[in-house]
């Protein structure tokens, strides 16, 4: 058949373990990519999706090897091709857009050279023509002033720009097939939406086939015609994109979609228990058996085969897909969160400014910070006992900086941070007493880095208990077991080291450690970003449960607006270290009023092909907040005039209690909702 561009046949890839056993990363994969179509490959980390994409270029990572099967491109198998011949296909016929363009561009070579290299290899253009082509390509990916960009080194560009360069480089060879490995992961929401829109445009414009690999069903939903769902090295579901997202007939996909928080739904999604089996663990039955809600006895000992359902044009690997087929409509249930905040104020930030400016000698002597345009400025927030307040914004918005100051890791330049109305916490760690330290605990983004790899779980949790309460012996032990149970980990975890735990388990240990100090406030810094979607829901549910049990206050920082929607009572939107809007989550999400909130929420990708992101503003990267006027003036599409550039906008209050900082009158702001 001529309309098939890539054919994967019974592909198995694996590695040899230290014991000499063969461990499979990909198990007998077969699929076809048609001309002009975009196929999304989705799966959690470790599902083998990247390995599959790389194999489609005839590339197998060091340490892995092909056990069997073929990857056919134009009827020749890439996996046993000589490197000479592969060089002629890679970049010219099949091109790759990598996950992390910042890492994938060679640091010592200029952008222009790296694109030129692809042109030299894959076209017969003369030097003059190539120069022109480079500008054209950079233009096509919508980079400003291509001539100057070409002379830059990779590190001089922002993340979004680097990703665009990678796209330009891939397009240089005018490939027939583009492989995209998580191309927007790690980018800001707005940038992500813009890059995806660009990719969609290119797919239509050039008719290139695309294979889009991602863990993010939201991104996949926006680009793909067909979706392949992978689990534990196998294809478990393959079919038209819309059908899979609207009516998932494999239990794994079903659970996955249920566990993703949505912008339109307040409340916590259901979590999927357990985690994906590690490669090498041999199971006699279905690999999803442990986590499946639809399993039967036969699933335990018999592995289901991938079955093609003609009427649905879908392949599914499940004995019980019919049960799911009968469920007429896919519905997501969420547990509404209880707002158990009371009116008592627990933390108050007034006029807080934070600066990263280097202290000059004179300032060091007088122990002051002089910076007219600090990174974070004029932050006024009242935090009530028992509430969850979320700080949202793109990278560089100062949300983590504010957390650091509250934790005492960074001192404030001006302003007051007060705890419980009278205790001053504006100073940094050194000047705080042990009790001040105890009442505020942090949970970090990446538990791999925040847990000491040489300590057992017992030692990790024991530390705050010994430090703050002087517990020892029997009592200490009892407390540790108690805490472990609170985060749903058994007693036997005590003797384990972090490396013996999965990502979700590690984060639970980090949560237990934070609660060990019996804090009043817990600062959550992107606590779920390093976790897989199914695990994320479980951790969010756990945090909510613990909060209700202990009456703790959360300050929650996340770039994921849907997660924030799920867990927070109130939201504060930040841009360039200045507050734009503060208000109850329900109002902010239902009626985004500030122009920046509109931009931010509009760019969120939902795992639903019918909800398209709205791109309101350009995704320019501003390095510094503007000297005067509104912080958002550089990107705002609704500037009213000179006043935005000259004067800091006033706070305006809505009826529902939203505070918005904008020059546009509140009535008008509320009118233009989407």
């Amino acid at each position, binding site marked *: 058949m001529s309309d098939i561009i890539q054919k994967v046949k019974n592909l198995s890839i694996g590695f040899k373990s230290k014991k000499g056993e063969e461990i499979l990363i990909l198990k007998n994969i077969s699929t076809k990519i048609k001309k002009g179509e975009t196929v999304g490959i989705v799966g959690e980390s470790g599902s083998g999706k990247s390995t599959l994409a790389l194999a489609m270029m005839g*590339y197998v990572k060091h340490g892995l090897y092909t056990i069997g099967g073929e990857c056919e491109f134009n009827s020749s198998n890439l996996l046993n091709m000589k490197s000479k011949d592969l060089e002629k296909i890679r*970049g010219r016929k099949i091109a790759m857009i*990598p996950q992390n363009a910042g890492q994938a561009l*060679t*640091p010592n070579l200029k952008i222009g050279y790296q694109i030129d290299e*692809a042109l030299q*290899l894959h076209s017969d253009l003369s030097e003059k023509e190539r120069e022109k082509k480079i500008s054209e390509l950079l233009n096509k990916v919508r980079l400003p002033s291509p001539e100057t960009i070409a002379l830059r080194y990779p590190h001089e560009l922002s993340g979004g720009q680097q990703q665009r360069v990678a796209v330009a480089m891939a397009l240089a060879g005018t490939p027939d097939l583009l492989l995209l490995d998580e191309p927007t992961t790690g980018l800001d929401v707005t940038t992500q939406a813009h890059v995806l829109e660009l990719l969609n445009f290119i797919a239509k414009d050039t008719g290139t086939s695309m294979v889009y690999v991602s863990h993010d069903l939201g991104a996949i939903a926006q680009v793909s015609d067909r979706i392949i769902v992978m689990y534990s090295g196998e294809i478990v579901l393959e079919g038209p994109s819309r059908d899979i997202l609207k009516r998932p007939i494999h239990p794994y996909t079903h659970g996955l979609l249920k566990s993703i928080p949505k912008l339109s739904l307040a409340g916590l999604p259901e979590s999927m228990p357990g985690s994906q089996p590690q490669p090498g663990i041999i199971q006699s039955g279905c690999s999803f058996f442990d986590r499946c809600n639809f399993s039967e006895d036969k699933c335990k000992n018999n592995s289901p085969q991938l079955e093609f359902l003609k009427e649905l044009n879908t392949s599914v690997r499940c004995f019980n897909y019919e049960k799911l087929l009968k469920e007429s409509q896919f519905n997501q249930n969420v547990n509404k969160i209880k707002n158990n905040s009371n009116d008592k104020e627990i933390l108050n930030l007034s006029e807080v400014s934070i600066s990263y400016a280097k202290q000059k000698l004179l300032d060091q002597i007088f122990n002051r910070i002089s910076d007219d345009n600090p990174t974070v400025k004029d932050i006024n927030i009242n935090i009530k006992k028992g509430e969850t307040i979320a700080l949202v914004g793109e990278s560089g918005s100062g949300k983590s900086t504010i957390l650091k100051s509250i934790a005492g890791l960074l001192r404030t330049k001006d302003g007051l941070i007060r705890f419980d109305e009278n205790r001053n916490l504006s100073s940094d760690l050194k000047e705080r007493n042990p009790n001040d330290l105890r009442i505020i605990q942090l949970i970090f983004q990446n538990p791999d880095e925040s847990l000491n790899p040489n300590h057992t779980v017992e030692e990790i949790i024991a530390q705050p208990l010994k430090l703050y309460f002087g517990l020892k012996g029997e009592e200490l032990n009892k407390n540790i077991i108690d805490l472990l149970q609170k985060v749903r980990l058994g007693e036997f975890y005590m003797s384990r080291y972090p490396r013996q735990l999965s990502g979700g388990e590690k984060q639970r240990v980090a949560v237990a450690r934070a609660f060990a100090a019996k804090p009043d406030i817990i600062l959550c810094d992107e606590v779920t970003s390093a976790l897989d979607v199914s695990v994320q829901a479980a951790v969010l549910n756990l945090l909510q449960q613990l909060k209700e049990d202990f009456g703790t206050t959360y300050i929650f920082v996340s770039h994921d607006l849907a997660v924030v929607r799920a867990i927070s009572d109130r939201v504060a939107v930040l841009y360039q270290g200045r507050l734009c809007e503060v208000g109850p989550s329900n109002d902010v999400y239902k009626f985004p009023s500030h122009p920046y909130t509109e931009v931010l929420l509009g760019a969120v990708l939902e795992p639903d092909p019918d909800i398209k992101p709205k791109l309101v503003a350009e995704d320019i990267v501003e390095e510094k907040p503007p000297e005067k006027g509104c912080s958002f003036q550089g990107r705002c599409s609704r500037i009213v005039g000179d006043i935005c550039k000259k004067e800091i906008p006033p706070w305006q209050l809505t009826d529902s209690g939203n505070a918005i900082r904008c020059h546009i009158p509140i009535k008008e702001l509320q009118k233009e909702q989407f």
Partner: protein
Amino acid sequence: MLFLIIKRILLGFITLFIVSLITFVGTEILPGDACTTYLERQAFGEQLEACYRRLGLNVPAYERYVSWAVNAIQGDFGYSLSGEMPIKEVLGPRIKNSLVLASAAIFIGIPIALILGIVTALWRDKLPDVAISTVTIFAMTIPEFISATLLILIIAIWLEWLPGIVIVPTDVSFLELLPNIILPVIAIAMIMTAHMARMVRSSVIQVMASEYVQMAILKGVPYWKMVFKHVLPNALLPAINVVALTIAWLLGGVVVTEVVFNYPGLGRLVIESISNRDLPTVQALAIILASIYVSINLLADLMTLMLNPRLKTLQIRK
């Protein structure tokens, strides 16, 4: 950029000043002084007086430091007690000899180290890597006094191809020196090359595993072009500092090797001056060795700065 260079040079001078102070204070607080230590039991009467006069020890310490420092900057380190002549004249030929030995080792050792390192990395876990790595690890672990002694035994005594130890006057001409340095150079180069080859190997392997090299492969860049354009410039950057330290170590005198081969270089001078209790010479040597380390590291840092676009643009922007 210029500001940075000036800053680094100034810092270098401050380091040297501190080193000179420490050595000066060190020699001051040791019991006795240069003359009593040197003369030992003859340290009395007319002889001691003469010595004091010649070294100028009869003025206060700070004055002595200032005049010593002023002279040292002009290249005059005073008078060697054991050599019975100005230290300048003692040092001259020694520095020359050490330079000859070091440059020979550098010119032979560094290219070989680079090639071995790159070859082992590119053929990682294959036969060339296994063979070369075994040899380099072996060469690294044998201490130089053993390898040097073995070299003397086999090549000088059994085979009688080359002189075993260097019995030449200190100020011998270069051509006469040449056959004498072959064995010491082999002894030094073995250990140095092995170290550096391992370093280069791990650095190249690290870069080969990077995402940008994978990207280059997936872009269809031919293997050798990828190695030279994408791998080596990034892999060898961190090697510059290691090479610099090695050069400094070589110039500073490879004490053990020089002693084993009786080679008249700086390293042996250090040992001799210490055992002769010749404090002024020890002081002078400390300063010279410190300057070598400081200046070579400075050069290495500047080179890294020039070659690493990340650092370069960062500095220019500032």
